[in-house]
Structures are given as structure tokens and as C-alpha cells.
């Protein structure tokens, strides 16, 4: 009977799919561990950096001579959205969630009469942002050849963003990425990087009075572009961990679904096999009786 053969093929093919999703899940788990380690190792730098920047920004920020990267251009007409997504698919709702967050932000800005410009990092986000906001799309950073995210990648993106800022192409820049909470939860986040906002640590003791060499302003001017790169770097790392986490849970689900499907198909296969046997028996018995 053809039906039996079909079912058998179907079970085989789902079994193969399960093997693939299982393998992808394990690869994602290994990559996630590496991504988390990378994020862990960058943390001391980022934390120290932000603490010092917060202190500097608090003491210089109020003055009129504060650098534009800190105080802003005085307008907020043109917004640059830097949307960071993954280069590959099959990672659950990861890219969709980030794109959704960015889309919501862009729409509310447009509704308020602002101009929006979109820069994407990662192929997946480019596709979906280009579809909806094609006319606002200004550029793309390709990371598909990058095996291991390094600080240089962040520096490249930062220098792209900064050169646009120097050319007065925008007033406010916001990063969109997913913050890694745990394997099942990644939170799509919007973070404003220009003008920079540094949070003073809660309950931090009165800042030590430092000597600055060269002057406070010069240090701030030197460090602000680096702060942009640092923010982008930590966003890239968070995003990489989130992507792998998201892929891992998506593939875990897929593997489980494939298992359920195999069980269901196997039952169906066994039932039809039994039906065929019963049929054959009936034929033989009724044939014998007819004699």
C-alpha cells in the first residue's frame, strides 16, 4: 500500500530534521558559552570606563564648552537608528523583536515630525528595515565575514557613526539590540549613544577629586568617541549572546516538536500497518471459506 511507504518516508525525513535541529542546538550552546565569556571579559573595561565617564560628564557636562557628543547639537530633529541584528536566521523571534522595537521607535518619531535615518548592522535587520523604511535607509555594516567579534568591529561602526555626526547628518543616535537576560529571555533594548548619557552609579560615594592630565575637557573630548565605540562593542557582544541563546531555545523547541511529530507519525504508521494485516487476514480467511 502506497500510504505506508509515504508514512515511512515522512518519518525518516522528520528524523533527519530532528538530527539537524539537535546539532544546531548544540552548536548554539557552545557558541553561547563563548559569547558569554567574551561579554564577561569585556565587562571590567566597560564598567570602569562608564564610571570614569560619568564622573567626567558630571563635572564638565554643565558648562557651555561641553563637547557636542555629550551635550548634543541642541536639536533633536534628525534621529539615527542603529539597528543591530544577526547575520543568520533560524534564531526564533530574535530579529523580529529587535526590528519591531526599532520600527515602533521610528514610527513614533515620524509621527512627531522628526526625520529618521536608519543604519543597520547584520543582514537580517537590513532586509526587514529596508522593506518598511526603504527611503530612510542610509547604510549597512556587514559582519558576515567576521568569525570572532573584536573591538575593531565596534571601532569601524563607531567611526562610521561619528563621521556622520561630524558631517551633521543627525542629532541623536540610538542603538537597538537585544540585551541578554538568559537563554529564554532576551530583551530588545534601545540605548541612546549620542548625545551620550552616563548613569551615575546609585549610592556612589562622592567622587574622588582627580588631577587631570591634560585638562578635563581634553580628556573628555578624547574619551567620548571611545565611549561610543565601547557602547557599540558591548551592544555587539550582548547581541551575539542573545542571538545564540535565542537560537538555542528555538532549536530546542524544534527538536521537541520533531520528536512529537515522529511519535504521532509512528502511531499512525503502526495503525495502518495493522489495518493492512487485518485486511490481508480477512481476505485469506474468506478465500478459504469460499472453497
Amino acid at each position, binding site marked *: 500500500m502506497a500510504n505506508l511507504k509515504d508514512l515511512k518516508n515522512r518519518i525518516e525525513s522528520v528524523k533527519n530534521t530532528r538530527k539537524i535541529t539537535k546539532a544546531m542546538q548544540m552548536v548554539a550552546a557552545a557558541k553561547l558559552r563563548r559569547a558569554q565569556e567574551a561579554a564577561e571579559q569585556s565587562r*571590567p*573595561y566597560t564598567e570602569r570606563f562608564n564610571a*570614569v565617564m560619568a564622573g567626567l560628564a558630571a563635572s564638565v557636562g554643565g558648562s557651555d564648552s561641553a563637547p557636542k557628543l555629550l551635550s548634543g547639537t541642541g536639536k533633536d530633529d534628525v534621529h539615527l537608528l542603529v539597528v543591530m541584528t544577526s547575520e543568520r536566521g533560524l534564531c526564533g523571534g530574535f530579529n523580529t523583536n529587535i526590528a519591531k522595537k526599532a520600527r515602533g521607535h521610528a514610527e513614533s518619531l515620524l509621527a512627531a515630525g522628526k526625520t529618521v535615518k536608519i543604519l543597520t548592522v547584520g543582514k537580517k535587520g537590513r532586509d526587514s528595515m529596508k522593506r518598511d523604511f526603504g527611503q530612510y535607509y542610509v547604510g549597512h555594516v556587514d559582519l558576515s565575514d567576521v568569525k570572532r567579534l573584536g*573591538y575593531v568591529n565596534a571601532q569601524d561602526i563607531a567611526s562610521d557613526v561619528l563621521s556622520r555626526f561630524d558631517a551633521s547628518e543627525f542629532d541623536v543616535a540610538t542603538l537597538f539590540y537585544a540585551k541578554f537576560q538568559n537563554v529564554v529571555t532576551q530583551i530588545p533594548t534601545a540605548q541612546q549613544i549620542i548625545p551620550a548619557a552616563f548613569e551615575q552609579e546609585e549610592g556612589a560615594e562622592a567622587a574622588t577629586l582627580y588631577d587631570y*592630565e591634560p585638562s578635563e575637557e581634553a*580628556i573628555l573630548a*578624547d574619551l567620548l568617541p571611545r565611549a561610543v565605540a565601547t557602547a557599540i562593542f558591548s551592544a555587539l557582544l550582548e547581541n551575539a549572546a542573545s542571538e545564540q541563546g535565542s537560537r538555542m531555545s528555538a532549536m530546542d523547541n524544534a527538536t521537541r516538536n520533531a520528536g512529537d511529530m515522529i511519535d504521532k507519525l509512528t502511531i499512525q504508521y503502526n495503525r495502518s500497518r495493522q489495518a493492512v494485516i487485518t485486511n490481508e487476514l480477512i481476505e485469506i480467511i474468506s478465500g478459504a471459506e469460499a472453497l
Partner: protein
Amino acid sequence: MADTVQFNLVSPERSLASMQVNEVQIPGSDGDMTAMADHAPTITTLRPGVLKVTGPEGDAEYVVTGGFAEIGESGISVLAERAIARADMDQATLKGMVDAATDAFAKAQDSKSEAADDIAKTLADTVALGDALGISVN
């Protein structure tokens, strides 16, 4: 035995050193400075140069570029955009750094950017770094 002070050297990608030291010679952008225990709290930006550490656990040298050093009550932290142990420094790495600085300088000159002077200094410092290390670019 001189007093020791906690010293941390971190780059964005990893933490390179965390130890007790007697003194740290920091290549500040306004000139070298040596920090020891009970140094006045200071923040200085870095120029491309060699950071020398002397401590009870032995001496170490690192090549650092970009970033800053913070000398505080709790210790000395150096945050460098790139930090490489002296032993791992080779001609190719140095050449990469010099080329990057040269490119940046050429670009800044083209656009007549205000930062051209700073970038010229970075380039000169990077070239001087090669001399200090005894590595030739060519």
C-alpha cells in the same frame, strides 16, 4: 620593601593583568609618569607607548594604545583600547598600527579636520614606539 598597590590592565576584549605592584610607568599623552602607592588621584589619557610594571611578582611590559589610566585610592587601572604583552609584539602588529595611524593621518589631512594635529602626534608616537621596542617597520 616598598608599599604595593593594586594594578589592573584591561582592554575591551579581556583583562590582561591584575596584581600587586610597586610601581607602574605609564605613557601619558603629556609625558611618562610613574605611579607608586599613595600617588595623588589622577586621570590621564594614554599615548601609544610601553607601560612598565615593577612588582614583587616580577616585572612586566605591555604595549598600550588609546584609552586612559586612572590612579585612585583603590589602585591603578589602565584602560587601553589595545594592550599587548611586550613578548607578543611583533613586526606585523607594529606595522598594522603604524599603517592605521598613517591612514588616519592622511584622511584627517584631506578633510582638514581639527584633529589632524592629534592624529599626527599619534602617528609620531606609534613610530617612536617601534624605536623603543627595537622593531623596525620595514
